[in-house]
């Protein structure tokens, strides 16, 4: 028996508590450290899962949300979820593998494992979720905002735009140096003052350029 064949019958082994798993599977689990560890981990989770579960069944909406999340993340397909099928009478349609209304009142060990794993997985997914910035928010990038401002001034008077462009470079360089100085010594009052000055210079450029482009 190889690992793939072993993992196919793994749910039965866990469900039965390993009592009536066939000898071939037990031999493989003893011989293969990866599969052996997997069995031990799953049994441990199965033992701990009932302690984590509430006394009352979770709302059907929870199951529905879990399923939707797993489908939307591409972790499961909507039409086939073998592991979860055991929690219900299944097979009523392609997307209703989890037959919520007909769930049994008690949790099977495998069900507990999968439910716990799903909740944990969902938690991890939510924890790591970082919304992608919208494409239209380019102006939040300071360099792009600077360029936009310079373009506005240049459209009125290219020579003045050039002055702003040069000044913007100088101010950005000032900010970078002042930040470096503050990083070196946060208690350095002169460095802190210069950092504030540098930012005020930038604010002044923005204010003046905005006023100029509105004239």
């Amino acid at each position: 028996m190889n690992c793939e064949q072993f993992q196919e019958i793994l749910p039965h082994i866990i469900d039965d508590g390993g009592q009536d798993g066939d000898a071939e599977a037990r031999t493989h689990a003893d011989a293969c450290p990866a599969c052996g560890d997997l069995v031990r981990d799953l049994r441990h989770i199965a033992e701990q899962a009932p302690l984590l579960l509430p006394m009352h069944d979770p709302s059907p909406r929870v199951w529905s949300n879990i399923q939707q999340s797993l489908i939307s993340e591409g972790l499961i397909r909507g039409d086939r979820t073998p592991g979860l099928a055991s929690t219900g009478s299944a097979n009523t349609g392609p997307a209703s593998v989890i037959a919520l209304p007909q769930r049994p009142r008690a949790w099977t060990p495998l069900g507990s494992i999968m439910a716990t794993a799903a909740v944990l997985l969902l938690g991890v997914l939510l924890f790591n979720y970082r919304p992608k910035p919208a494409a239209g928010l380019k102006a939040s990038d300071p360099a792009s905002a600077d360029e936009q401002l310079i373009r506005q001034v240049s459209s009125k008077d290219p020579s003045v735009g050039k002055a702003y462009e040069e000044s913007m470079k100088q101010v950005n360089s000032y900010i970078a140096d002042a930040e470096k100085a503050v990083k070196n010594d946060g208690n350095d009052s002169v460095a802190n003052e210069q950092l504030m000055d540098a930012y005020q210079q930038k604010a002044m450029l923005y204010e003046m350029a905005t006023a100029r482009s509105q004239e």
Partner: protein
Amino acid sequence: MTNLTRTAYMAALLVVGANLAAAGATRQSRLNLGPGAVLTVVTSGGSVSLHPGTEQQVIVNSTTHSDRVEADVHATPDGKRGEVVTHVLSQQGASADDLRVDYDIAVPPGISVTLSTATAPITVQGVSGDISISSDTGQITVRQISKSHLHVRGVTAPVTLTDVIGTHVDITSTGGAVQLTQVSGPTVEVRTASGRITYNGDFAGGGHYLLSTHDAPIDVFMPAFASVDLTARSSTGAVDPPELPLEKKEHTNVLPAPGRSFTGTSHSGSASVELHSYSGRIRIKKQP
């Protein structure tokens, strides 16, 4: 000459005459503003000259150089606010010279003035009210101001102040050089990013002086009788040893860094002088 030809000839003469009149045409406007009123001047090119008036009215002489531009001059009925604004009528095909307006403005005492230009040089002389000046590239020159508030902002505009006494001075310039000659007051603060700062004076009357820059030099020329409590400090640039006898301070907030900082006093140390740079060289020299 037929009647038709004569009419066309006359019309052409009229158009040329009108254009000539518009080009270089000077118009005088008078504004009735009360004491404490604010006069705002906004223009792009040309020039602005501000000086004290002998009458109780603000007198605005505006010279346009084409018919593509006009000067709008008006005041609110209550006399608390006046505006002088250059209005571009047609920018299409106009040269920078066409859009110039030269202003000569006489201001009675007690009126605050706010000036904003793009390229127009600004000259302010002898005005008594508070003054706020903003210019992108036009030279800013201020002379003979006393006991006032002067607020200056520039992008690359050079700034020159001469004989500004007892005045709160606040100058922020990114790239323009700032030159102060005989400037004193309760607070005199100059901040630049890359504009050279030159102070030539005696820091009279005490007060607090701050000259700060990123990477431009700071040069201070002062007489031996100047009474200062001086701190010079550069993060990465050099601070030259002063040419004047200044007594080194034993206790100071600035950590001593050889060649990069200096603290000292002369006489009673009436004026507090702080010179700060990130990388610009700082020099304190004896006034010739």
